[in-house]
């Protein structure tokens, strides 16, 4: 499942839910074309991604062809057509990170998560993507894990970060029992 591949079908119930949530978000906006990007951002914040039904609703709301919404969504890096994972992993590939081995870090993430950049793991735990530059060039190579920039992420730190998630997951699954 890649971020921008052909939108995946979702269940009927997911669709109804997405539609309701989208409509609720739309209540906060006026019907101006200039609002398209802020609307998409707000809906994605709510749903985690932009399903087909949400894009269709937005198109009706703004009275524009639905393909125009699709154009904007597929143009910008930030928008996703498919659901994200629980944790987001963004490997920075800015110049400084690249020169200090960001591509090696990306390799390590891809190897460990067994997915390619732009993909989500089948259990929807992680999604992996790259980011052009987060402006933390002095901490290179950087990986932004769940919005937090992690400094000097080399392959061994990748293992360490994953281990921390693993442990956290174990602890939360142990608690209710």
């Amino acid at each position: 499942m890649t971020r921008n591949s052909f939108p995946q079908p979702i269940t009927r119930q997911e669709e109804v839910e997405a539609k309701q949530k989208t409509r609720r978000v739309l209540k906060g906006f006026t019907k101006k074309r200039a609002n398209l990007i802020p609307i998409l951002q707000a809906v994605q914040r709510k749903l985690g991604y932009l399903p087909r039904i949400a894009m269709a609703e937005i198109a009706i709301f703004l009275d524009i062809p639905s393909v125009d919404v699709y154009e904007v969504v597929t143009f910008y890096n930030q928008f996703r057509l498919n659901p994200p994972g629980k944790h987001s992993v963004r490997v920075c590939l800015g110049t400084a990170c690249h020169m200090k081995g960001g591509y090696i870090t990306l390799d390590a993430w891809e190897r460990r998560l067994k997915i390619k950049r732009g993909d989500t793991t089948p259990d929807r735990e992680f999604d992996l993507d790259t980011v052009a530059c987060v402006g933390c060039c002095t901490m290179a190579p950087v990986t932004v894990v769940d919005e937090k920039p992690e400094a000097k992420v080399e392959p061994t730190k990748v293992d360490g970060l994953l281990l921390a998630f693993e442990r956290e997951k174990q602890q939360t699954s142990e608690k209710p029992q």
Partner: protein
Amino acid sequence: MRQGVPEGSLSTTFASLQKNALARWQQERSSAKPVITVGTATCGRAAGALDVVQAFQDELERHGIDCPVIEVGCMGHCYAEPLVVISKPFRPPICYSRVNPVIAQRLVREYILGDDPCLEFVLGALEPNDLIPSFQDFPRAAYEQKLLLKNCGHINPLDIDHYIANGGYTALVKALQSPPAHIISEIKKSGLRGRGGAGFSTGEKWEVCNGAQGRPKYVICNGDEGDPGAFMDRSILESDPHSVLEGMVIAAYAVGARYGYLYIRAEYPLAVEHTRIALAQARKYNLLGKHILGSDFSFDVTLFEGSGAFVCGEETALISSLEGKSGMPRHRPPYPAVSGLNGKPTVINNVKTLASVPHIINRGADWFAGIGTETSKGTAVFALAGKIVSTGLIEVPMGTTLRQVIFDVGSGIPNNKNFKAVQIGGPSGGCLPESSLDLPVDFNSLTGAGAMMGSGGMVVLDEDDCMVEIARYFLEFTQRESCGKCTFCRLGTRQMLSILDDITKGKGKLKNLETLERLAEDVKAGSLCGLGKTAPNPILTTLRYFRNEYIAHIVEKRCPSLMCRDLLTYYILPDKCERSCDACVGSCAVEAITPNKQRIKVIDQDKCTKCDMCRVACPVQYNAVVKLSPPQKVPVASK
């Protein structure tokens, strides 16, 4: 002063704001209490500054000490993050570097509670004194001139009073009391040129917009800093957002704009948050909104988050994005100053350009024009990154040489490596070699050398960096970020990338270089917008200054800098490998290293991912892991 408002009332309104702000600032800073400030901009946070803040607060509470812990922005010394400044009465303010929670606890106990300044953690004092070397004694102080970065790391960016107490918004008050034409002529006279890269005269842009037909007019601040390796705008927006706002309001007054947009890229969440707070505070003080400070002038700013597209740094693409479309550049002219957002006259300026404006208004055009070179006035802010000791933000007068910036201000290349090149201006810029180091940094001389001022990212490369790979990296970037509208950029960058890919994989041919050069020139001449027109610069400069590296890749299938992974092998020298040490075995993420019968470690080349971890792990006294290029040179190891 525009009609209707008595001159005095404006300054009176502001004077009360100022008085209030000063009182608060003085109470916070010059009281008998110690004050701790922690730099919590993005780079500080990445290094753990928020944990440090928490540690200070916990420790102070434990000891029952009344001492404010203030979060400030970026001081520019990013190599030493997290940075903490502790000011104690009767002591110079001391800056500590690489502070962690344990050091924080010690500082509370030993310096705040006791009186031991813990010299082992000190980076420098902020003021000259007899006790500790101060920043003024650093070699970089001789070159640095902080204008835009003056407040960064000094004030709390979330507190408008801090900005006002340090002279903020006085330029706006001064501007509102003179006619717009006067402000435009001041800016023109100052010689301020756009800091976004192209270096167009700001005053002329304003003048055109001022004279253009159509209402309402707009002022847009371009904070879509997309160049990888550049973070000046991020830092200013995070650490001193009001300076940018003040510049925007002055620009709006000068051109007669009613609405403004601050366009900040989505990858900078902290800058977005800080700016949002700053906008709310400025509105509350009536420094934005209707009848600013009781004058006839009304202006308000909307924050717009970019959605991740490098091309939106181009002004027409940015406007398209604000209009709710994909960020497609369009043909110029008409320039935005005549027909921009919604077809109305629009001034678009970079963050640093706008942040320079209050200083010019306050201290005069002549003062500003006195800094810098003949053609480029004022200061230049650079983000130093890559293979340089003092990574971070610096601000020097235009005309400082690259050598001074890299070796004096930036303290040179770490690990005793040799300087190879400096990449300036991101994907639009170029790589300049040792021989160009005595060039002064200003708009004209950099362009002459084939690079570009760009927005100010400077990535230093040493002998381990491959220039072909750098060119390939930037092409991959521009190719991915090309909007796809025009033929040259969409397909030309793709073709060039495919040639460079081949070369870095050892599959290149000599005649490819000719194609590459020709194509690069055509893409430069034929593309629609600045992205395409400058995309070939990394190729053209590396071909110009480092052609021998291309030839080594093509003819010898060798990467001279040992960087291109397809052209190298990792090998453990049997006579250097220490049999009792297993550091490399543990470091290997894919279990490609195993000891042989003599306990000498051997790499299984089929498994090896060339991640470099074993070479890093191998203790320096052995240095047994080496990279070999071309790869077929690897000796066959006995199992």
